[in-house]
Structures are given as structure tokens and as C-alpha cells.
């Protein structure tokens, strides 16, 4: 994509003082959400698109943040390649909102925020939040922004689950749902991966039962392992073979356990980078939200019945080499919608990048999103 993006962006903060009853039974007395916006909300307030983030994402979807001198930094939004003037999420036409989810670690109220009851960080006491809770909190943000109904809600992976949940929690407040590289619920294998990741964190001596903030430490090694494991599952076998193969970083093997293979180097780098900035309690909660998501659960596992109340039109997209959220899982959503006679288009993109494909600039993928959104009436 050669067009310039949205330029320098800055986060905003919205505070909500009405209590939010959570699915798990607890009540958050008040919370903040940080968000970014790109483009301009039109007079009819009909051109807003909410972009929901996945496990490790945040509200910084597009553009670059500024340094203290107002100069753009290297901190570019995680989905910048799809948002901007002339890009599929065209900011000349749409008003795009990115939000950091409740329980996150990028400014919205989360485990590192002060617990009003104690004045100390919530830590382990921060409630487990679900996809339904996120959508409920995002609806408060929509109210705050004066948006009655989103033109579209869009997301990849866990973000796609939120887009799907929007159609069920607030059928009248979402006109299009773009559900990308997602699934109607996790498989046992997927939950298993998440649990190994959680165990890595929970058994780290620096975790301190989730109250590590007061000990002045962070469970870096557990978080690092969790991220390394996750990363393996986001890539495809072919892509790993092509990108790293069995190449060694230095000439020959040393018959030890230092970094030797390129893939080891890559994974450790990714793990270190992530563990340096991400909050372990947030990671635990994000993976739990993934595990719990199952809209068909209350409908005797009948997804079609669960989706029947949706009024939105759907664009479902899956990627050929994504084995964590495979095309078969997206087709389950498609077939449920077809069963109900609901509006749905489904594109299956040939891509080498596994689950991470949804973040890539694949021409057919972006063309599908672009073409679909061009038909969205404002």
C-alpha cells in the first residue's frame, strides 16, 4: 500500500461511572477505556466502524504516535495497512474507532489499575472479563461517542469474536459484522494451547499469585514462554520452513542449549519483546475470554439458533494456512447463517502466513474488505 496513512494519532480516554455487571457475576463500579479515532464522524453518525483487537492488540490501530516534540515515532498501529485514506477502511469515508479492551494493559482499566477498594493495583482481583463484557463496555463507548449504530464492527481472531458478539448483544446497533480469522468457539486443542500459556505464567515464581506489582517484579519468563508458544501456533509450517528452515545462526552446532537455530532466535526475540511490555494478568484474562466464548452454548450447541437474532450482514474471511482458526471453523459460522437465511459473504484467502495472515497485506484479502465496505451505505 503506497498511499499515506492517517498520520500522527493520539489516544483519548473515556471514563464511565455507571457500574458494569460482568458475566462472571462481579460488578465493576467504574472503568476507563482508551481509544483512538481516525476520520470524521458524519452528521448522521452513520459512518462509524469499530475495530476490535485480538489477544495482544490495543487501541492503536493505525498511524503513528508522536514523541514529546510532536514528531512521529516508530510506534505504528497494528492494523495500519488496512486503515487510512484510500485503504479498505477508508478514513475519507468512515470514522474508525480503535479501543483497548477492558482488562487490557494499554490504558484501559485493567489488572494494573488501582482497585478503588484498596488503592493498590487490582492484580489477581481484577475480574475475568468475557467477550460479552467487552462488547457491553464498547457499547458504553458508542454511547459516549454518540453512535447509535455502527456501520460495521470488525476484528480478526479474538477481535472477530467480538464483532460476532456485537450482532447478538446489540442486534440493532450493528449493520455489518466483519469476522476475520475467527471461530464460533475454541476447540479443545485451542484451549489446550491457551492453558499451557497460562501455566507458564501461573507457575513463574515472579507471578506472586497475580500480585507481582507490589513485589516490584514481573513474571517475565512465564510471559515469554506463553508468547513463544502462541507465536508457533500463529505461523504456518510452510512459512516457518521458508523463513527459517533449519538454518543455524553461526556456522555449526555447538552441542549445547544456547540459541543455535534461526527459529529459536526468532521465537526468543518475539518472547522477550512481548514480555518486556505486556501485562501477565491481562494475558491470562485475554486467553480466558477466548476459551469461554461460545454463543451456541445456551442453545444446545446449535449455532444457527444462537445467531438467529442477529440483524447484521456478515462478511466472514478465513485463511488457507491458518490452523489455529482454520477455514472450517469460519465455515461453521457461514453455514449457520445460510441455514437462517441471513446475509453472508465468505472469502477464503490463499495465504502462507497462518493465523497471522489477517494482519498481512494480502491483495485478495484487502480487495475483498475494500469491495465489501464500498457497498456499505452510510
Amino acid at each position, binding site marked *: 500500500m503506497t498511499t499515506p496513512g492517517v498520520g500522527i494519532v493520539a489516544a483519548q480516554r473515556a471514563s464511565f461511572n455507571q457500574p458494569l455487571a460482568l458475566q462472571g457475576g462481579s460488578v465493576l463500579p467504574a472503568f476507563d477505556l482508551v481509544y483512538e479515532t481516525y476520520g470524521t464522524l458524519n452528521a448522521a453518525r452513520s459512518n462509524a466502524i469499530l475495530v476490535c483487537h485480538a489477544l495482544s492488540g490495543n487501541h492503536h490501530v493505525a498511524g503513528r504516535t508522536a514523541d514529546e516534540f510532536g514528531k512521529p515515532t516508530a510506534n505504528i498501529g497494528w492494523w495500519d495497512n488496512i486503515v487510512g485514506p484510500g485503504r479498505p477502511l477508508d478514513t475519507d469515508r468512515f470514522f474508525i474507532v480503535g479501543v483497548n479492551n477492558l482488562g487490557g494493559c494499554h490504558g484501559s482499566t485493567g489488572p494494573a489499575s488501582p482497585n478503588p477498594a484498596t488503592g493498590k493495583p487490582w492484580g489477581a482481583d481484577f475480574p475475568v472479563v468475557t467477550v460479552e463484557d467487552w462488547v457491553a463496555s464498547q457499547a458504553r463507548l458508542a454511547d459516549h461517542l454518540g453512535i447509535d449504530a455502527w456501520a460495521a464492527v470488525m476484528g480478526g481472531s479474538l477481535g472477530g469474536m467480538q464483532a460476532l458478539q456485537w450482532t447478538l448483544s446489540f442486534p440493532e446497533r450493528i449493520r455489518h459484522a466483519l469476522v476475520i480469522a475467527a471461530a464460533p468457539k475454541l476447540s479443545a486443542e485451542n484451549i489446550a494451547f491457551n492453558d499451557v500459556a497460562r501455566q507458564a505464567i501461573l507457575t513463574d515464581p515472579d507471578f506472586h499469585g497475580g500480585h507481582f506489582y507490589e513485589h516490584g517484579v514481573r513474571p517475565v519468563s512465564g510471559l515469554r514462554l506463553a508468547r513463544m508458544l502462541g507465536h508457533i501456533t500463529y505461523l504456518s509450517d510452510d512459512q516457518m520452513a521458508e523463513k527459517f528452515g533449519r538454518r543455524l545462526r553461526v556456522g555449526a552446532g555447538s552441542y549445547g542449549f544456547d540459541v543455535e537455530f534461526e527459529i529459536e532466535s526468532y521465537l526468543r526475540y518475539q518472547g522477550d519483546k512481548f514480555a518486556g511490555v505486556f501485562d501477565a494478568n491481562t494475558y491470562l484474562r485475554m486467553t480466558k475470554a477466548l476459551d469461554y466464548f461460545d454463543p451456541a452454548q445456551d442453545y444446545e450447541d446449535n449455532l444457527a439458533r444462537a445467531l438467529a437474532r442477529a440483524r447484521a450482514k456478515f462478511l466472514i474471511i478465513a485463511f488457507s494456512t491458518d490452523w489455529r482458526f482454520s477455514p472450517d471453523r469460519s465455515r461453521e459460522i457461514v453455514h449457520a447463517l*445460510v441455514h437462517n437465511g441471513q446475509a453472508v*459473504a*465468505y472469502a*477464503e484467502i490463499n495465504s502462507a502466513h497462518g493465523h497471522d495472515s489477517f494482519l498481512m497485506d494480502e491483495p*485478495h484479502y484487502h480487495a475483498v474488505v475494500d469491495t465489501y465496505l464500498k457497498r456499505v451505505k452510510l
Partner: protein
Amino acid sequence: MSATAGGQAVQMRADFDLIASWVQPGERVLDLGCGDGSLLKRLIEERGAKGYGVELGDAEVLAAIGKGINVIQGNLEQGLAGIDDQTFNHVVLSRTLQTVRHTERILSEMLRVGREAVVSFPNFAYWQNRLAVMGGRMPVSEDLPYEWFDTPNLRFFTLLDFEALCAKMNLVIRERQVLDEAGRLVTEEPNFLGSLAVYRLGR
């Protein structure tokens, strides 16, 4: 499916005219190999149908999405596998049966997910095709527009062949219409004078 020749475009409309006349308002139609969604768009706009399409090609899927069609990307068998029994009033397979490897399976699947299968295909026994083979060459025509070395067609069959298969599979032929290369209805000697056949099948 490319409507390269003008004649095929004319006949394609005749093909679509027939199919459109069979769809009642509000009925649910699945178009297998829906291309850019032209037929579905017509059925939705003119007949008030609820339409879905299955299509494999990226460019066609993109074009169908651009028309606002409910298009599902995948091959025909994938496209049908997850769809519940008797979801559709009509399942259309237009000019595609000759490219499908598992002929019996696709016909069975069409009548599993739909109450009626609408199938059109080029008639290999059309007199001009017979003439071409008599002259020693494989036919190239409006309905068989490919050379032998680049054709996507796997099966070459006639009206009589197809009806024998329907009998073997216990499929009921509810209606048959046969068109010539100009898209006119053929009533006499259809297996000789007909270039394209359109069938409505049931159980």
C-alpha cells in the same frame, strides 16, 4: 464461466430466463459456480428470491461481493458439505456439470440441500458437434467454446446419456427445456437440434 461470444451471451440470457421463470417470489436459491453473481442478482431483483452462491475463483468472488451477493468461496463439494438438508427451494448448477468429477455425488448433494435441482449443460450430440467429430475434429462451439487441450470440461455427454443417469439414480425429471445456439427453444429432435439442455430434477 466467460461469456466470450455474443451468441453465448444471448443464449445465457435465455438460460437465465428459463431459470428465473421457475423461481417463485421469496424462494431460496443456491447457485453453484455462481461466477460474478449475475443470475442471483437477477433472481433477487426480478423474482424476490433469497439467493446464495458458491464460487471458487477469487476474481468472481470479488465481483459477486461487489454486487452485494451472498457468495461463499470454495469448491462445490466444500460449499455443500456443511449446508443442512432441504435448506433451498432450488439448487442451480448452470453449465458446470460437465466440469465436475463426481457427477452422481454432486447431483445427490444438490437434492439433499435443495428440493429441486436445476441443471444445465451443453449437449454433446448437438448436430454441429456430431458434424465436427464426423469431420475428424473435436467440436468448438458456443456451448463448447474450448479447444481439447485447454477445456475445463471432464465429461462429454448427451441428453439421452443424462436422462439414463437420472433413471439410474431414481431422479425425477420435472421439466426439460432445450435451446439452440441462438437461445431459441427447441421442441423437435432435441438431442440433435439442441445445443444446451436445462432440467428441473426432483426426488
